[in-house]
């Protein structure tokens, strides 16, 4: 798995819009006017190309050489811990920050000199930034009025947007008379009203409670699919990114660590940091040993020799980590019988259960291995009556070489 996005790029080709009310995103009037004098972009040019962008605040490199292509119709998520530079990157796309180095190309045109109010890009702000003195209707109409749209058209568009976010009957309310979820919808409607080419969403769901967040995630996905618009969402919540996005860019300390589909990000993280950041993982540190038949033996400190399905053969004695997700770690009372022949089919370790957490859909176990290391395992509760394991029970912990990953430091 390389860090190059091309290998994992799965573009969500937008379906024809189902709703007749909303047309797919059209190039913004301002952009068309400005771009008409420019040479036509190459046909295979992505909608948005970020090239070696650096943003410094004093000596601090908030964004440190990020390159990224985003195609039209993608639902792209920038995921990372707070302070990783994802919001700064988003703000550069919106025009609130100017890159110190690198270029941002929209439709093949450098948008560095384009002021925020002239960009065919709209942003949904983290705390919504609704205008407190304006009604829901006037908030949504704000951008349309600035674009010089005719009054009748504004009314039609506002009605469309209000229906889209299901706020009928709330048009005359002021933001402080709305609930958090309703405010979020107004912000969404306001940012969509101008039909931007790219919609930027800065932590769009962070202010909502869990239940509302989940339903809103699906509404956003459905909306994006219907409008065929390009969404770029910034979030620190990996579940949110995994659920909504067609591709995820993981950022850390100003750098783009990996760009991949949610599945690839989870199943084939390219670094130990990503493996730990996205989801839960068990890590065995060790050194590369012999390789035979696509199977690499790694002698680990805590788990003895672990076999990993790995076509590459790193030089012997390279320090690596073997990563295995908890749901791929199985527990049993006896060692499983290897199917077929030829070497060990499974990695088997033994230990004692120290913790059992029943979470409804699944149960997680912590097993203290004989070496002293703790391995986490989670198993789906697929039947009502489970022959569950209990604390201080001795079990065999096993996993297949195919489910393991070798990560270099």
């Amino acid at each position, binding site marked *: 798995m390389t860090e190059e996005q091309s290998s994992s790029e799965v573009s969500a080709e937008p379906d024809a819009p189902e709703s007749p009310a909303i047309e797919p995103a059209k190039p913004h009037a301002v952009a068309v006017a400005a771009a008409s004098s420019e040479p036509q972009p190459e046909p295979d040019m992505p909608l948005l190309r970020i090239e070696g962008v650096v943003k410094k605040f004093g000596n601090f490199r908030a964004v440190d050489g990020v390159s990224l292509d985003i195609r039209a119709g993608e639902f792209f998520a920038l995921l990372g811990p707070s302070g990783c530079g994802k919001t700064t990157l988003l703000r550069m796309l919106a025009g609130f920050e100017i890159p110190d180095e690198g270029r941002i190309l929209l439709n093949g045109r450098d948008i560095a000199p384009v002021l925020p109010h002239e960009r065919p890009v709209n942003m949904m702000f983290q705390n919504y*930034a609704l*205008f407190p003195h304006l009604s829901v209707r006037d908030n949504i109409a704000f951008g349309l009025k*600035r*674009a010089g749209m005719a009054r009748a058209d504004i009314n039609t568009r506002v009605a469309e947007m209000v229906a889209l976010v299901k706020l009928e009957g709330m048009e005359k309310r002021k933001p402080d008379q709305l609930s958090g979820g309703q405010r979020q919808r107004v912000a969404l409607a*306001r940012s969509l009203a101008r039909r931007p080419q790219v919609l930027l969403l800065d932590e769009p769901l962070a202010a909502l409670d869990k239940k509302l967040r989940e339903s809103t995630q699906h509404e956003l996905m459905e909306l994006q699919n219907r409008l065929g618009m390009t969404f770029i969402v910034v979030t620190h919540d990996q579940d949110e990114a995994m659920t909504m996005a067609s591709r995820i860019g993981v950022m850390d300390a100003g750098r783009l660590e990996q760009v991949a589909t949610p599945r690839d990000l989870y199943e084939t993280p390219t670094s130990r940091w990503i493996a730990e950041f996205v989801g839960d993982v068990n890590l065995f540190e060790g050194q590369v040993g012999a390789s035979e038949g696509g199977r690499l033996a790694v002698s680990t400190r805590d788990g003895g020799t672990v076999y990993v399905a790995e076509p590459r053969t790193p030089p012997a004695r390279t320090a690596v980590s073997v990563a295995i997700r908890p749901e791929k770690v199985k527990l049993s009372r006896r060692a499983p019988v290897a199917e077929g022949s030829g070497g060990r089919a499974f990695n088997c370790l033994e230990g004692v259960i120290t913790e059992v957490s029943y979470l409804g859909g699944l149960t997680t176990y912590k097993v203290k291995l004989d070496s002293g290391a703790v391995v986490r395992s989670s198993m789906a509760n697929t039947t009502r009556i489970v022959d569950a394991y209990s604390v201080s029970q001795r079990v065999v912990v096993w996993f297949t070489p195919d489910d393991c990953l070798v990560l270099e430091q």
Partner: protein
Amino acid sequence: MSARRIFARPARYAAIAPYLWMVLFFLVPFGFVLKIALSQTAIAQPPYVPLFDLWGGREATRAALEQLSLDNFRLLISDNLYILSYLRSLTVALLSTAILLLIGYPIAYGMARLPQRWQGVAMMLVIVPFWTSFLIRIYAWINILQHDGLLNTVLLKLHLVSAPLVWLSTDTAMYIGIVYSYLPFMILPLFATLAKQDPALLEAAADLGASPRQAFWQVTFPLSLPGVGAGALLCFIPIVGEFVIPDLLAGSNAVMIGQTLWLEFFTNRDWPVASAVAIVLLVLLVGPLLLYERVQHRQLEQR
């Protein structure tokens, strides 16, 4: 013991304090002034009749009550002098408030845009003149504006004028004095509303296609209206009753109501008419005061 029980009593007493204050220092004196306004001038000590004798019994009280009349108020309406000085006071206050707003808004706006650590410094600079006595500052202006004062000297040295201009005892001098004195009262409430505005709102406006100018008029300005209202009323109300500045800096051809009041009270020793002037002034200002109340109320709701 519940927290409610601990705090209930002192809290209830504390709530009485402002009312007590109002009764003691506003309503009671207002009652005295109103009574004097309804009395007649007399060459006596005090210079008006009737006097209420609290120990004179019911008959004496009734006789005194019958002597009260609205004559003084009729005089105010019938004599141009009073009407003109009321009008002048209102005009001066309106014009001064408008000038104050025009000067104060950009200053407050600039202060609110300063980095946080400079805002405190700017605020100090606005407040520092208060540390000098108000009268001294007005006398300083007399010094600056007089015939051979600083202003004329500078103008002559710069060859902007060939002969000294008359500044002192003109309306210009009075407006300079008023605007100078009241500027902090305009700036501070404006600054308070502007500084607490969420900068994300301006970004949102820009994001939605508003140029900086449009963003100002569509977002910043409407949201600062409570501050504009507070600043305007904070200046307008005291300027209407202003006495010292017009007396020291303006000419004597037209007087503001504060000066008329002073004349009636000290020169004519006509306490009843002076009281009537004061009562009418108060009634004129109750309108703006109620408005101010409502603005403040709305501001509180917004928080």
